């Protein structure tokens, strides 16, 4: 016999009865304001002068602690664009220099559950130029196009970046294989490891 047995009706392309597993829960995201260092924090973040002072001081401290650091200007500029890097004296003196990208802008997010119940706690992050003319967080986990002032980013983009002060500068080879600043990543809020799309 050729007959199919126990065949239940097959459906295709119907919402609600798909063969495919449901998409995973979306990663927790938060809305952020983004602005360049030469723009007004008060206007961009909708914050008071005092709040802005604290945000910027936080970001400056993080910049000193965890900005990407390189052992050669060329490597730094390859990642962050020509003219976007500056030298910093190597710790402990000596002739060598360490290069780091300029602090180009800020990102601010609001989180519920800060000091008081239901209050919003603001947190700031430094942003760095990319070779492609975007701004990104130190680890490249969130990227923003020029002129972008609002975005949704994974909440984990606010986790502290690993300290780079006093560590051996990254060699060119390590940078090339890191991929975090890759120009092939999708703009804005690209999360985790994806960097290119197939065709």
């Amino acid at each position, binding site marked *: 016999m*050729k007959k199919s047995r126990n065949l239940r*009706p*097959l459906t295709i392309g119907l919402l609600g009865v798909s063969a*495919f597993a449901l998409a995973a829960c979306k990663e927790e995201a938060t809305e952020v304001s983004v602005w360049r260092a030469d723009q007004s924090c008060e206007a961009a973040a909708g914050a008071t002068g005092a709040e802005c002072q604290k945000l910027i001081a936080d970001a400056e401290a993080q910049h000193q602690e965890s900005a990407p650091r390189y052992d050669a200007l060329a490597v730094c500029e390859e990642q962050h664009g020509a003219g976007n890097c500056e030298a910093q004296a190597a710790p402990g003196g000596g002739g060598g220099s360490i290069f780091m990208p300029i602090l180009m802008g800020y990102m601010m997010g609001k989180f519920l559950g800060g000091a008081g119940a239901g209050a919003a706690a603001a947190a700031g992050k430094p942003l760095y130029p990319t070779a492609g003319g975007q701004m990104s967080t130190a680890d490249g986990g969130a990227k923003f196009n020029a002129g972008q002032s609002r975005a949704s980013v994974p909440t984990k983009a606010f986790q502290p970046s690993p300290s780079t002060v006093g560590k051996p500068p990254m060699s060119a080879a390590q940078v090339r294989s890191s991929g975090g600043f890759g120009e092939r990543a999708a703009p804005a809020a690209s999360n985790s490891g*994806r960097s290119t*799309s197939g065709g």
Partner: protein
Amino acid sequence: MKRIPTQPRPDLKEKAEAAGFSFHEMHGLPYWDETSAYAFTLEQIENDLEDPSAELHDMCRQAVEQITASEELMARMGIPEGFMDLVARSWREDEPELYGRFDLAYDGAGPAKMLEYNADTPTSLYEAAGFQWGWLEDMIAAGHLPEGADQFNSIHEALIERFAEIVPAGTQMHFTSVGGNEEDYGTVETMAWAAKDAGITPHYTPLEKIGLTEEGQFADDESRVIGTLFKLYPWEDLMRESFGANIAASGCRFIEPAWKAVVSNKGILPVLWHMFEGHPNLLPAFFEGKKDGDPVWERSRELLERQGWVEKPIFSREGASIRIHEGGRVETSTHGGYDEHAKIVQLYQPLPVFDGNHPVVGAWIIGRTCRGIGLREDASRITQDLSRFKPHFIWPEGQ
């Protein structure tokens, strides 16, 4: 084999929509056409289609053994040099095949002739496996077909069995097709239903959204690593896109395996004819170009010149870029952008004519056996993307 007028179901449109079969009409014309159906005897199905198709699949496997051992042959078949290892390794390591569809010229008498083998990305799976079966049940229930009428169609059950053999239950498996293409999605989801019934957890991701992780693995549109991937996208294209360079190191298991690139390739037709010259289900075929001195060619030459021949690019889909040479005249199908590829020539085998229509039998291979058929017919001699899908049934024995 007969073409029999049948009563279309009055609620066909509702049934198609309720099933999600949104492409039952395409370009404003019916694609699923049940105003008539093809009727077969059990002997025709078993002796002329089922057994020969399984044998043809086995012959193709023997041809792959020969092709993957020869870089010269792989080059002729358009396998880029950088992918020859991948193709040969997938064969050597016995990566299992899932499915394919032979296109056969068959008129109810005499041996079916293999026109080609869509062994990599065959579509029309939902129509053949699902909607066609629903039609038979409805026709019997309405009294339009006798109680004992049957259909050669255990495609869905066979897919479940095959998945259970080749993918461990509990596997998180990805399925991909070109985003926004409803017809391709239909084929992919039909496949996913079978996978699910085999205990696999299927996930869909559009082809364009596949990414690469820092470790060089592929990831889906939610950045989850892809371990096993069913791709409704031809190997010859995967190999020619810049993203293809990531395949070898990705550690991703592809279904169909890479060796299907030399099966779903018209270049296998001359290889088969040289290995199995005179086989009743094969048509003489040759690579275009210099053939003088090839004794196999010399034995077929006169027949091709008398009966005509068909020129086919080694890669082409939906009957595109095909030329029929017959009695000094040339008939060309629509251009499909495949002209830059190498070509083969095959003896012209006219399709049978039923009420002015030219049917092609699609014989579905699941694993290594033939488990069902679906027919498409076209008013033109070349079956193209506007052809209609026709249901079939098997007469009850003794009628």
